[in-house]
């Protein structure tokens, strides 16, 4: 078999011959990124559902739908990346439990079920109402979803509420587990110096939350504009404070990790320095620039008690910057870790393909999908407050 590796990675120094075929492409950058958005969005909904933080009530149900829309597409980059995607179910049939990856289908599957149930309880009253209001195919779908029960008595709604709260409580460790698990997936690879860190799960989890809050802010502002309804200042300020707190912790932990690494100067540190100055230089600038910039902007917004257009504009900028900063962070970890040779004597340089099933176009397509699905779901089940009356259904 004669092989021609079109996109063999160029390198400097010495790398093992097989390393020039970089195993995990840009698809695996987008995978933890999408997972992280789910975790972040879910945490916001839990702040209301579990902790009763009422300032998040306007976005709580929307956050749930956002989480599930992105969750549907978490396996997509993985399936695109597999050499034999048709065998993906082997990992479900015979999960090898010493492998973090074997847990993926179970953790993700459990989490999807949890999200669907939580959404079902949160929206059941709406579904029952719609099953009565709609006729034809739409009506039949709503009736199917209501499981043939139109019981919306206060007693049964109270039971629903208890179930929803219980699910939300389970959901917090599940979301944390889901993303901590993704961090573990990388952090447990002792062969990769740049990944093999005990802090990796916690860094992944916290950065997931900040990216998810960023996404939620951007989507909430966009939906409000579209609905011609002013975004809730209370909700935005709540999101600003939450984002600020999580971001501060992320920056501290990431900073401390780098500090320790450079202070200890273990074998191979000069190659790590060359990695940061070289292949992932722009990624590092984006990651740290965005994070520190957003932290500063949020501080100003919070201290000045910003309101109205200033708050909306400031939060939109923060949300977008946060999403860019975290995608850069994912790149720096996933790609950077593979650009640092296992020989610790060399650096590879990864250039993503444009076309092809592991190319940038595939990534753009996968990343667009959850937005489309979210749009479809919100047309089907409006997450906005019932009190607004006319907005119950499209």
């Amino acid at each position, binding site marked *: 078999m004669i092989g021609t590796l079109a996109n063999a990675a160029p390198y400097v120094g010495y790398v093992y011959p097989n390393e020039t075929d970089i195993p995990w492409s840009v698809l695996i950058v987008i995978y933890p990124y999408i997972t992280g958005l789910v975790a972040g969005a879910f945490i916001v909904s839990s702040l209301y559902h579990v902790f009763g933080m009422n300032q998040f009530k306007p976005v709580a149900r929307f956050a749930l739908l956002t989480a599930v829309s992105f969750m549907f597409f978490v396996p997509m980059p993985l399936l695109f990346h597999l050499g034999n995607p048709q065998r993906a*179910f082997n990992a*479900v*049939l*015979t999960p*090898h439990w010493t492998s973090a990856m074997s847990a993926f289908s179970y953790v993700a599957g459990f989490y999807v*079920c949890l999200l669907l*149930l939580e959404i*079902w309880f949160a929206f*059941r009253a709406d579904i029952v109402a719609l099953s009565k209001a709609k006729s034809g195919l739409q009506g039949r779908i709503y009736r199917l979803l*209501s*499981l*043939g*029960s139109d*019981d919306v008595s206060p*007693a*049964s709604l109270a*039971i629903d509420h208890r*179930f929803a709260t219980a699910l939300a409580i389970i959901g917090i460790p599940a979301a944390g587990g889901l993303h901590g698990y993704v961090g573990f997936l990388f952090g447990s690879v002792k062969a990769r110096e740049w990944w093999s860190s005990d802090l990796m799960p916690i860094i992944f989890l916290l950065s997931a939350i900040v990216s998810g809050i960023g996404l939620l802010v951007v989507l909430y502002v966009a939906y409000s504009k579209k609905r011609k309804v002013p975004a809730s200042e209370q909700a935005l300020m709540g999101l600003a404070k939450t984002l600020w707190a999580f971001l501060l912790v992320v920056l501290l932990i990431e900073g401390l990790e780098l500090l320790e690494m450079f202070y200890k100067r273990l074998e191979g540190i000069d190659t790590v320095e060359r990695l940061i100055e070289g292949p992932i230089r722009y990624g590092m600038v984006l990651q740290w620039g965005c994070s520190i910039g957003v932290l500063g902007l949020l501080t100003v917004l919070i201290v000045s008690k910003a309101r109205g257009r200033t708050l909306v504009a400031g939060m939109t900028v923060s949300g977008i910057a946060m999403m860019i900063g975290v995608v850069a962070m994912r790149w720096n970890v996933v790609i950077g870790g593979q650009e640092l040779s296992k020989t610790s004597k060399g650096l590879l340089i990864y250039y993503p393909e444009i076309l092809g099933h592991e190319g940038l176009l595939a990534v753009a397509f996968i990343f667009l999908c959850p937005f489309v699905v979210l749009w479809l779901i919100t047309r089907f089940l409006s997450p906005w407050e019932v009190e607004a009356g006319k907005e119950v259904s499209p």
Partner: protein
Amino acid sequence: MPKHIVRLMILVAVVAAAAVGAKAYFTDKSYYRYGHYRGDSVAEIAGDSPRFRGNAYCKSCHQKQYAAWESSPHNNPAAGKHVRCEVCHGPVGQHPSSVATPLSFDERIALGGHAAVLTDKSAASGSLSQPKDRTQCIQCHEAMPGRPAAQRQVALASHSGMAACNSCHDPHEPKINFSELPRPAQGNPVLGKTLAAQCAACHGPDGHSVNPEWPNLASQHAGYLLKSLQAFKAGTRTNEMMSGMAAGLSDADMENLSAYFSKEGCKRVAGDQALASLGKARSATCALCHGAAGVGGNPSWPNLAGQNVSYLTASLKSFRSGSRSHPVMTSVAKTLSDDDIDRLAAFYASANCK
């Protein structure tokens, strides 16, 4: 419990049961037999056919080459050297079965004769013959920092020009036994001249043969002449005339004769000029030892310039056939065709021997 909760629980239970059932149904039967993997895969992997099949397989047909190799430095287990057949020739694979060669050996001989079999080097024939240029040998023998000192290495630029290695070395038996090659002789030419009378009948009084079948001796290297006489006397080289003549010579006689003839002046022998120019083109290999114009720098090896055409031709053919043997010439002569020999003989006969 409200109706919708009950129904939801039934739904969840049905899905879970279906999942467990599907898992049991789709899991391979040999899975978990020896551990967390498909047990049958072990025997499947072990069942692949080897492509490298070892020396014994080669030996069954190529006995002559095997015998040469077996006693050569390429097979020296005591020194940890094992240059087995497939190291140079590559994996035997299915050679020479019907997979590698669509026709059987007999069929190919029937169709095109032996020549067709021997000259068919196409990949489809499953031929394992190796390139005759340097690329093969230098993989191990190019002098290179990093190679252990015990490894035989040659500096490519200064070793034998850029000639193919097998010009001198038989790859199956690469060692050239230089102790068997002639050494320069020290004799007395004056004493030799008196002895030379018995040679004159055939080789002429001054070493120029009366019959082109016999070699000219004038100006030949003394070391070569001495070694030749010694070989005739010892019987390692035979000739109906020379074996008898040499038998009556003492060691001193041979030294003196060699000294005498080596000092005599030589003459150019006329040869076919057209053939000679073709011969010159084929002489690069010979030039390594015998000099560019047939006068070698090494006194142990014969000058060829001015030698008789018939003698040169006969000598090369006897090397080629094996009736005369020499560590280098035997393998060199095998690379020559009849035409090559005629051309080379014409070239050296007409070359200036001064």
